[in-house]
């Protein structure tokens, strides 16, 4: 028995070492991006590569901001992202409530179709949806990127929210009905606080999804001053192909908001991922 314990402890030591080494390798691209963003272009192009800058050039950032106005791009991105988060939370929880709490004709059918649409590859329909938007003269701007969030908020989110609602005892709703509350009030005042973790997770993931999206903005936003941050970064790289220090500084600024958001909302991110993976 003692041998077995020892063997177990030894494997744990080995596992710790492997996990730490691979973990450092996983962090390496972040380190490399950050370190390059503080170098001069000459230092960046040194071979063999330098591990750290000889002097940390903090003024790379003000310079990068002058050629890559990231604050404006962030505001643009937020203009799309924030309403979309609201839309997704609102419409997915409404649909989830209907599926979890109400009985109505064709319920099973709709549920199957809505959930089945989870498997639908979105890239297939980019052309007709673009055509439809240009038909009503709205194909250049933020509208086509925001409106879909208000149309159901995605099958995965509806499903997640419904699964969560199913775990909450109906006694609460019934008491509220007796008190004369309507369904809107039951959902938003009584149930929403109880399913807060899943709502926060959905909100965070929607934020990241919209913040990181590139294909959508490429299709619908043509004016530079309206560009989202991912889009602007892609353009910046093709336009400033040799100024790597600024490209690296711009990249650091672009990835900071999602990373900070993750660090703040870690618990909900992990929970959300687990729920979507295990409940499905």
């Amino acid at each position, binding site marked *: 028995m003692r041998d077995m314990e020892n063997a177990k402890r030894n494997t744990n030591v080995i596992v710790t070492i492997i996990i730490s080494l691979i973990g450092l390798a996983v962090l390496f691209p*972040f380190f490399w991006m950050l370190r390059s963003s503080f170098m001069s272009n000459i230092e960046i192009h040194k071979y063999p590569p330098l591990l750290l800058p000889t002097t940390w050039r903090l003024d790379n950032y003000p310079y990068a901001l002058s050629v890559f106005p990231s604050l404006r791009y962030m505001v643009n991105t937020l203009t799309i992202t924030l309403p979309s988060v609201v839309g997704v939370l609102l419409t997915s929880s409404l649909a989830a409530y209907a*599926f979890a709490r*109400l009985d109505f004709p064709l319920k099973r059918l709709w549920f199957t179709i809505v959930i089945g649409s989870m498997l639908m590859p979105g890239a297939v*329909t980019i052309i007709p949806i673009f055509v439809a938007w240009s038909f009503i003269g709205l194909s250049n701007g933020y509208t086509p990127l925001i409106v879909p969030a208000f149309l159901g908020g995605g099958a995965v989110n509806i499903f997640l929210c419904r699964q969560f609602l199913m775990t909450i005892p109906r006694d609460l709703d019934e008491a509220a009905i007796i008190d004369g509350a309507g369904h809107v009030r039951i959902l938003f005042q009584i149930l929403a606080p109880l399913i807060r973790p899943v709502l926060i997770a959905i909100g965070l993931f929607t934020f990241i999804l919209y913040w990181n999206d590139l294909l959508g903005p490429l299709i619908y936003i043509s004016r530079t001053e309206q560009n989202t941050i991912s889009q602007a970064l892609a353009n910046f790289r093709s336009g400033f192909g040799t100024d790597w220090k600024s490209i690296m500084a711009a990249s650091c600024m672009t990835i900071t908001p999602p990373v900070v958001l993750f660090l703040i909302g870690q618990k909900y991110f992990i929970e959300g991922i687990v729920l979507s993976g295990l409940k499905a």
Partner: protein
Amino acid sequence: MKTRMTPQNTLTAYLFLAPALLGLFFLTIFPILGVVGISLTNWSGLEKPAFVGLGNFKQIFTVDFYFYRSVVATLYFAFGAVISGIIYSFAIALMLNQRIPARGFWRSVYFIPYIVPSIGTCIVWAWMYESNFGVLNYALHLLGINKIQWLQDPRYAMPSIIAMVVWGMGSMIVIFLAGLQNVPRSYLEAVEIDGGNAWHKFRHITIPLMTPVIFYNFLMSMISNLQIFVPAYALTHGEPSGKTLFMVFLIYREGFMQNSFGHASALSLIFFIFIAALTAIIFATSRRWMFYEGE
């Protein structure tokens, strides 16, 4: 007291569902019909479209230089990324499931690449892959290996992109880890009592109980990775010689850069059927290897 099916409840339910149903029709069902319709025309988005029957499809299957390359590139990428991603994530999750210090910290470390915008990932990896000054070639040099043109060499471009994408699959690790924590200890202990070793536990308890999670990860990441776009757009433009000409990139290029909506819609429709068929095959074969508890 159960919520009964009253006319009033039905009305409420349909009102609550209205946004989702509108989305279903306007963002999925009608657009699919639209793809079919536009694919039968030569529409450029500017002039009046003319009906060309199956002309676009005939062209794609007979003369289109890019189509087959694109199918090969997309399949190679999706299978390569999903299979290596599952192996990587499962291995990391198994290790993170041991009693090791700072487990939560490492879990976050492995997860973080998942939330980085793909354009950011592409840029920093492009810099590491750079053939003259890049750190990866320097690492090879230290090992006495010659420089590699990571993204320009037809042999290495795809594996390089796959490695980059797998780096960003942190969400799978989290799902696997949660799945592993749900494997009942009593089952594993039963194997120990019967004299089984770690491999027996892994092979006969962990793997079978994890098949539903593996299936979910496989299916979902297959569907999303078949739609890979950003690396082709930002790094390779489909090069070298069409090796990374992913389907969605080809559709985007034909539709929005060449303005041939007819051709791009025909490609979209083929792409749709292609993914649907693949999904059906995955579901059909899953019955053979998936283990359902309580069966």
